[in-house]
């Protein structure tokens, strides 16, 4: 791993092409799974897809994306957001089952479990990626910020549903942001992509 110098002057080791590609693939898959989950939830709760919830404001308070951020900071921002998403998702599932029961194992519940597992997988991959970037030991998740996020405002069933809906939307949003951010790392991705494409072409060339 070759060292990189950021605009701020810090030097860090770049992520391996393989790790980056794997994380990107998982994030893409998570985004797809989240889209499916949102669709299933809308159908289940008869929510019109044309109507927004909570004025479209994100639940997580994260620093705005900026081109000034280094690759490491960008990855850290994503990791932090996804970590909070997982905490919210776990809370949402718990409260949903407590309030409305469930456990029948329908398509919605299966998809919800898939998203939760996929999100955990993405977080693990992100952590390894950050370790490669930082060259530092494993990162410990900060769960304090997760608990500070408010739950349903009034404790009513409908507010709980809107809250769950917003959490699913939040996961979908941050999985999409993850894909976009990973692909915006030009040096690593273009090199990786170019090499991959070249390899494929050589392999595909008929003898």
């Amino acid at each position: 791993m070759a060292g990189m110098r950021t605009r701020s002057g810090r030097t860090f080791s770049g992520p391996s092409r393989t790790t980056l590609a794997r994380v990107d693939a998982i994030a893409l898959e998570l985004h797809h799974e989240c889209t499916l989950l949102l669709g299933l939830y809308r159908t289940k709760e008869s929510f019109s897809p044309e109507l927004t919830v909570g004025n479209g404001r994100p639940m997580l308070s994260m620093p705005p994306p900026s081109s000034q951020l280094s690759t490491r900071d960008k990855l850290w921002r994503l990791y932090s957001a996804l970590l909070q998403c997982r905490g919210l998702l776990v809370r949402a599932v718990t409260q949903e089952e407590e309030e409305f029961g469930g456990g029948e194992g329908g398509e919605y519940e299966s998809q919800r479990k898939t998203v939760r597992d996929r999100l955990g997988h993405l977080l693990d991959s992100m952590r390894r990626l950050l370790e490669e970037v930082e060259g530092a030991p494993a990162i410990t998740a900060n769960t304090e910020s997760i608990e500070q996020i408010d739950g349903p405002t009034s404790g009513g069933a409908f507010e709980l549903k809107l809250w769950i809906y917003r959490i699913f939307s939040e996961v979908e949003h941050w999985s999409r942001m993850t894909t976009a951010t990973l692909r915006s790392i030009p040096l690593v991705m273009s090199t990786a992509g170019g090499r991959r494409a070249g390899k494929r072409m050589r392999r595909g060339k008929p003898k």
Partner: protein
Amino acid sequence: MCFGRRNSNIKAALSLLSPADLLSQTDKLFLKHLTSSSMHHYLVVLLVLSLSSCQASGPPVAPQQVGLEADQDAQCLSITWGGPNAPHYDILIWRSEFMVTVFNETVEAKPDADGRFRWNWTSEEPLECTSLSVTVRARSADEISDWSRPEILAGMDVPSKAHAQMYPSSRVVKVGSNTTFCCIIAEGDSFGMISYHARDMDFTRLSRRSYATTRTNQGPSATSGTNVVCSNSKTIVTGAVMFVGYPPQPSDLLCETHDLRTAECQWSAGPDTHLTGIKRRTYYALNGRNCSLAGGMLCGLEEWEGSWTLEAWNQLGRARLTDSAEMSHRVRPLSALSLVATVIHPWNATLQWAWPNQTYASLSLICQVQLISHWHPSTQTFTGAGLDRAVLSGLQPDEEYRCRIRCGSQRNFWKWSGWSPYLTFTTSMDRPDAPDVWVWMDSNSTGRIIWKPLTKRESHGQLSSYEVTLWSSEENRQRSHVLPQRTHSQAFSLGSPAAGVRVTITATNAAGVSPPATLGIPDYLGDVEVSVSRAEASQAGFPLSWTPPDNTSCDYLLEWHNTSCSQPCALDWTRLPAGATNTTILSDTDWFQPGVRYTFSLYSCPSQHPTLHQRWEAYMQEQAPSRPSPHVSSNQQGSGVLLTWEEVLLEHQRGFLLGYRVYLANASRLSLIANITDPSQRNYTVTKLPVGSYKFTVKSYNSAGEDGGSPAFISLDPYTDWLILEILVALGTMACFLAVVTTLCYRKRKWVKTAFYPDIPEPSLPGDWSMPQGTLDLKPSPHSMVHILENPEWDSKEALVTVPEEEEEEGSAPADTDEPSALRYYNQVVDQGMPRQRPAHLPDSSASSGSSVDSARTDVTYTGIQASAPAPQPQPPTGGYRPQMHPASPPASPPASVEQEQVGAEGPFGGYKPQCSWKMESPEEGLAPSLGSPTSVTSVTSSQFLLPDPDHQVKGQTSWFHSLLSGKP
């Protein structure tokens, strides 16, 4: 009364003010949107208040200290007031903001211990939806008090509650109930719609921010409830969740014991309540102790109490179930443990198991062992106190079995225990059964020994080999062959008669050798005519029956094979006991196929000397012949066609042939012309066919139908006899026609003559024409003479020269020319002797004569007659007549030259010869040219007149035709 006056003042002021004056500035904006109905209610309230104020001048006193207590969940408003007792009270409730009356009735109320009156009112809308104002007045028999001071129950749409809300926010109701929802939008927000389970609802505006809708007959909701969503155009503003379901309805509570000490009760939850989640699910309690329901609808008690009560409840209701029983009647043992097979034999095995509870040792048990072999289950039952072992019988050697066991209380049987885990074991091997063997003879001395493979049930273990032995009693020697276990036939040849040969076969496995199977050799019947019966197949198979042979007590062997099979033929057989007279070969195997003929042969005494007793042929199911009759040929035979064809091959017949049908193909359809019901007849003659091309189709048929047909084309040639016959008929017809015409003409000859040859009227001549023969003293009429004499230049002789008939005949002019012969003659003369132009000096009579000659020969003839009759004598040059000089001698040269020579030799006037020489003429020659010609007739007639024949010879010779025409004999 201050209150009353003050109240009166207020109402007076109200009555003077417009409704808009009473509202705040903000409300004024909404007043514009008030409906006429709202205005109407508002005015009614004001009017009532005004009237009441007018009457408040006297007693009774208005109710005081009106209080309001709201039960939000029940939507119930409890109204209390104090004051004097009155039999009735008027209660008026209206929505404060829009002043719409929602309740206005007279009620009865009695004071409580504190002297206060109370009346409860249930609102259709949740009480939070908007503020309500309440006022009360007393009413006696004929007096009404003033209205009390209005009390207001503040709604959640007041400005201090600025956020969006919906009421009821979450409620559990029964299926079929009605619920009114209200959506209170946030301050400054706009309202879009209210939807119930994604269905847009009609709504009513209750206040500036509050909108209400009612859902009737609500259906059961999903696990997470039914959403009621209030939204504006872009965002979900607020919402509520309705949980619509049923109260619990459990059933079938039953309690039992497994260990003869504790109790375990089970029940059925009943219909789905549609209510889930911690708050809404159904809870159970058995004899007052809560049930965890971890294992389903199951609850246990540490002691057998003998009677049990189950309570079930949720937010919509409560249900109760009871059960009671003695322990001995509710014993259900636990499943057996540690099932093992302790002893295993080829035909039996011993099982042993253990009980988890020692109390079963004294319990009388009944146990079932389920055995499964080759997916076929069977059950064996055992009983005994504390039963813990059993011997399984009826097993098969070298067989794998799976078994399990369950038990119950033998006395007061209640229920089976659960099945134990499966146990698998395999029985030991045993020696095989004797093979089932049969012989197929290919000739008198060769054949094949065939035996059926031993099944697993018959082999009792893996076979190692077969041993086949042929023993000849006459030769007193035997030949043995050991064959591998995969072989199931063995060819052989005989050196001695088959009757003395025995076949023996044994099978061998690891456990031993099977008993021998012995068989005699049947006679070869290939060249022998054997009577074959037809058997009718039934739904089940082939029922066959026979008469047993006399003096025989042997068993039978029934063999069958495909009748049209090729060598080596696939065989099957079955053995029948002695004395059997019928059997049915089942057709539900793969052996039998529809449309295939099978031969069944019944042999008696197969073990000693098999003898064919009876033979049948049958089809399991007949089908239409698969192929048509081959080689259909057609040959013309006279006016008919002989069709011949060959027999359909047996494998293509697919049924017993019933005959053939011969069709004549006409365009696109077939016309049946013959139905041959004898299948052995394979020709047919189609007779009496006209000449032409034909296409015949021959189809064989059986009971299932007919084949596709074989065509035969033929083009019939004309028949020679017919041609000759046609010619003869034509000739005969023509002859008949001619005969008829001739007869008719003969019979109608007068008419024919009249029609085609009318008589020429005789000229009426003066004087007597019947003078004697001789020289006639013919004197021309004065006019004629004058004419003749007065025209010396005109040679009348030349004009009247008679051309001999011979010459005329030989003339080059055709007989059928349009120009009459007399005219031709005349023209000839004129052309030769004189120019065509007529002399100008000719007298009128002469001119008329000449013109007559020109115009009509009849006139010419008459002129001639008239001119010649009076002067038959030869005349000096002055006469115009030119006699015939040589009528008898035929001319040797053409008439023209002859005429010229005669003229030249004898002169114009010489050579006259009396007409008596006519007798020299041949009648044919003389009459033929003139036959049918008026001129000739006239000429003849005139000649007769001129030269009557004394012998009448000419007349006699020529009169046959006249006689024919005149009808005279």
